[in-house]
């Protein structure tokens, strides 16, 4: 079944329209060469059951929420058929998100499986530029109906987390939370991030490799927190940041829990 939803509502102002584009229970959709702008929502939402989707060559800008949102927060326990999976998000521009919604990111993944985010340009986001999050911090659902296998590589991110000056903290230009087994974050370039963290591997972010990422003028934050008991061995690779990035723990600086 394929469902492409455009919901039109009256304009709330002359600036933004309340329109959203959602894919649910969908297979084989290509979303390409579109301009999605000035919406009081996200740009494109790949929700429950969106599978085999390609998102490429689009502009997403001046949005209340993220440019591309894949997966749903409440879908952490869905079965494989309902999992948002097998998605490619490549060669898109995502810019100017969250002027009116501070938690707005650039590209967000929630409980997804096998999503490749490559060669995108993301800038001027209120919160993270790239954000992946598993809904349950303490449930290590590795391998349960598939959550993980994210590839985030060859992306350029700048001026992410731009609302730090408004007190919006605990973030990074490229940010991961929860265990995403089989994931790789590599060969990205982050510059002019306004947060202190260009790359942030936050709680439970084990089983993700962070290799060959370049950061200019910021840190690599690494929160060494794992749930107990942890059935797995931490395999997070020490990030390679051949320039200014540092790989050391920064739990004190970022105020994260350690135990």
């Amino acid at each position, binding site marked *: 079944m394929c469902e492409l939803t455009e919901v039109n509502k009256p304009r709330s102002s002359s600036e933004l329209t309340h329109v959203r584009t959602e894919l649910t229970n969908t297979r084989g959709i290509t979303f390409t060469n579109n301009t999605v702008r000035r919406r009081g929502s996200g740009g494109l939402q790949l929700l429950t059951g969106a599978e085999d989707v390609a998102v490429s060559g689009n502009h997403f800008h001046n949005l209340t929420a993220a440019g591309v949102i894949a997966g749903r927060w409440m879908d952490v326990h869905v079965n494989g058929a309902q999992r948002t999976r097998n998605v490619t998000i490549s060669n898109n521009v995502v810019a100017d998100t969250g002027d009116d919604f501070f938690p707005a990111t650039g590209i967000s993944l929630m409980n997804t499986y096998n999503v490749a985010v490559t060669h995108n340009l993301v800038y001027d986001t209120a919160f993270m530029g790239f954000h992946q999050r598993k809904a349950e911090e303490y449930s290590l659902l590795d391998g349960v109906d598939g959550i993980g296998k994210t590839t985030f590589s*060859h992306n350029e991110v700048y001026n992410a987390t731009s609302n730090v000056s408004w007190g919006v903290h605990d973030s990074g230009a490229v940010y991961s939370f929860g265990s995403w087994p089989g994931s790789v974050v590599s060969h990205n370039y982050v510059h002019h991030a306004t947060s202190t963290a260009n790359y942030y591997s936050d709680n439970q972010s084990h089983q993700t490799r962070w290799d060959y990422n370049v950061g200019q003028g910021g840190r690599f934050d690494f929160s060494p927190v794992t749930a107990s008991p942890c059935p797995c061995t931490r395999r997070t690779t020490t990030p390679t940041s051949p*320039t200014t990035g540092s790989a050391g723990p920064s739990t004190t600086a970022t105020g994260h829990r350690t135990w």
Partner: protein
Amino acid sequence: MTDGAWPAEALTIMNQAGLEPAYAPLRWKVPRENLADHSTLAQRSAWDSGLGKLWDGVTETGEASSNTNESWVQFDLGADYERFAFTIQQDNCCTWMTTHWKVQRWSASQNAWIDIMPYQAINTAAPVVYRPPADLATTNIRLYVRNSNQNGRVGVHEFSATGVRK
């Protein structure tokens, strides 16, 4: 880094990140509201660490400041723009403020910075706009701000430059 040079491996990663060549023109399709921001910042005089407040679009975050009575910041727009409008805003108060401002353009033919406008006085906390002749075009601009008060130091809340790509 050594002497400001990036390692070759890092440069390769930087150059290969972002849009692939076939999609490179997409980079310029998103309209830019302020041409003078972090992405076009080229050179600067001494400012404090909050220079980003100059282009964050809101006054509530405070002012970019320096401990001198004159400072400048230079932007490389990447291409020729025209139909400029320059807007500055300061708090008109206290030690850190702005009493005068001007904008320059780079003239390749003259190999020199040329005043788009000579120093203009400011005595208001409201935004002040200056529009040069519409056909004035340039790729590089430089904002100068000055505090002529005794022992005055430079403080500016916002600066923006809008224009149309030529």
